[in-house]
């Protein structure tokens, strides 16, 4: 039987990889994907806890996470498209229009 801590370690490693992706990559699509990795890592720990506590709340939460992720991806990709129209690049370092 695999103990809970192993699931959590896998989850942490995945989350770490996601963080690294967000911080190190300049390609905005890849950054987005890294965010998905982090969300998935969290889902894994939620469901792992569920299994070991015999309840379904975590699964409901990961269901919500999926819904949010879907919303986020659709809006985020739409933003990328509209930014791309203005300036044909997806290099994050060239976007700093949020600066006032």
């Amino acid at each position, binding site marked *: 039987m695999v103990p809970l801590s192993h699931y959590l370690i896998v989850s942490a490693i995945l989350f770490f990889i996601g*963080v690294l992706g967000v*911080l190190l990559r300049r390609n905005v699509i890849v950054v987005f994907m890294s965010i998905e990795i982090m969300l998935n890592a969290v889902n894994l720990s939620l469901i792992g806890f569920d299994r070991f506590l015999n309840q379904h709340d975590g699964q409901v939460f990961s269901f919500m996470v999926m819904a949010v992720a879907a919303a986020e991806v659709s809006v985020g990709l739409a933003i990328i498209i509209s930014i791309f129209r203005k300036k044909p690049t997806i290099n994050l*370092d060239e*976007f*700093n*229009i949020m600066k006032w």
Partner: protein
Amino acid sequence: MLSLTWLVPTFPLIGSIINGFWGLKIGKDNVGKVACGSVILSFITTVLILFGLIGLPAENRIYEQVMFDWIVAGDFAVQWAYQVDPLSMVMMLVITGVGSLIHIFSIGYMKEEYSYYRYFAYLNLFMFAMLILVMGSNFLLMFIGWEGVGCCSYFLIGYYFDKQSACDAATKAFIVNRVGDFAFLLAVMFIFYIFGTIDYTEVFAAAPHKLIYDGEIAIIITGFLFLGATGKSAQIPLYTWLPDAMEGPTPVSALIHAATMVTAGVYLVVRCNILFMMAPMTMMAVAFVGGGTALLAATIGMTQWDIKRVLAYSTVSQIGYMFLGCGVGAFTAAIFHLITHAFFKACLFLGSGSVIHGMHHEQDIRKMGGLKKHFPKTYFTFLVSTLAIAGIFPLSGFFSKDEILLHSLIDGNIFLWGMGITGALLTAFYMFRLVFLTFHGESRVDPDVHPHESPDIMTRPLMILATLAAVGGMLGIPLIHGWHVLHNWLEPVLFIDWQTIVTNSTRMMEEHGHVAHLSHLLHHKEHPDAGLEVALMFLSVGVAITGIVGAYLCYIKYPKLPETLTDGQWGYEIVKNKYMVDEIYDETIVKPVVQGSRLLWKEADAKAIDGTVNGVAQIIGWCSKQAKQFQSGYVRNYALSMIIGFAILLLVVF
């Protein structure tokens, strides 16, 4: 009948609201109708209440109507309640009655003014505040009325706000009144501190038990109350605002600065008669301030050339008589003089208004003279009122003034009486000087000015007031016991239980280790000797006639005489300049205060306070400029901050 009480102040309030908010829309005619209608309705209601009050047995003539709980905070509870008793009844009748006539007169007088509605809105508001002042059943409600009338007085003195002198006069009146108001407020606080309540009935009932006769507390409370009264009623030392207040329209001077508001101080003293009776030191001060003011204002009145200023000083002087009456314990006489003064002084002011109106706003009596033929009705009413104020038998002023003088002699002392009788002589003199200079003799009117008598709407109120000034004395016929209607009427309000006062004060003083000698208070005051009374009457009529004859000699017979008498006399110059009181106040009080305020403004406010506030803002601005560098616009940098935060958080938690 009595349950209608709340309507009395409500009518003018409604009138004020209508005129104030929709005055321009409803047109001049309707403004006048609303204003006069509301006050007349109020007067009718007052008369109905009077019948209700007469219907009650004399010792139960007090009716309290609670409208709502106004302020409730812990032990402190104040109700918005009206109290109708013989004293407030008298005041209500005077206010609404004289007020109605003056409102009607105003329709004619103010006809050509542009902001007609503003005038009537303020005038109605004044009526409301004045009625609150006299009808309130506690000191705080009286204070509201007190401030309300001061506020309306300010508005109306400054009615011609495009004139600098009017604005200055309004400001002066307001500020001088503030001094008195502050003292009044202090007195109310003291009363609450000592008695734990500010309701009239409860305070006055508790006074004999909680105050010591001639004790410090009684003197402090009454002293502050009296200082408040001197502010509102223009007595020494706070009288200087009233002559300047003549910048307002003349009916305002008649209503506010002669008949009603300035007598509020007298009302206050009479209302608190039991407190004052327990503080003989204050009473002495009241008497001397009253007598001194009566004399001082009369001397200044002799030297003024502005028709309204003469009347203003006359008002100050007459109110001085009322305080003289209060000071010697003759509260009935004070109220009596208040009533008759309201009649004849309102008539005089309105008469002067009629003259000013007919002379196209000329107020200098040196440019009048011989106006008798142009203003027959005004002249006649003016003459009647002048005779009344001079104290000629059997007009009203004779009875009321004589009663005050009599009491100042038998209950006071010879000095007080001397001041009073000298003042009476001067009053007769300067009032007839005014009449002679205005209506008799050679005409000195500018050729461009064509005097004309005022319309009926102005002369009719004059006639009614002149009639009242003539017969008003019937309220208090002396000598014949039981005919002094006013005395009998006010008896329940002025009743003082000397037995309780003496017992309690003696006990409390002995507890403090003092020896009390209060038994003399119990001796019944003897009714004045009829012979003395008659002698005094003849004397005062003689004095009045002397004054009149003097004025006749000076201003009709030998018109050059006054100039030769006064020319080059330093004494005359000082009196003419009003004893330099304004200048002295200016130098000693106004200028230091102004300079101090300027210092506070330039140094404390502009530099210290503004500097602190702006400095804080600048520091925050600098900090923000530093913090701005974190906002690079790169999302990654924000994420980096988040990560750093998380890392620190985790390190701290685990």
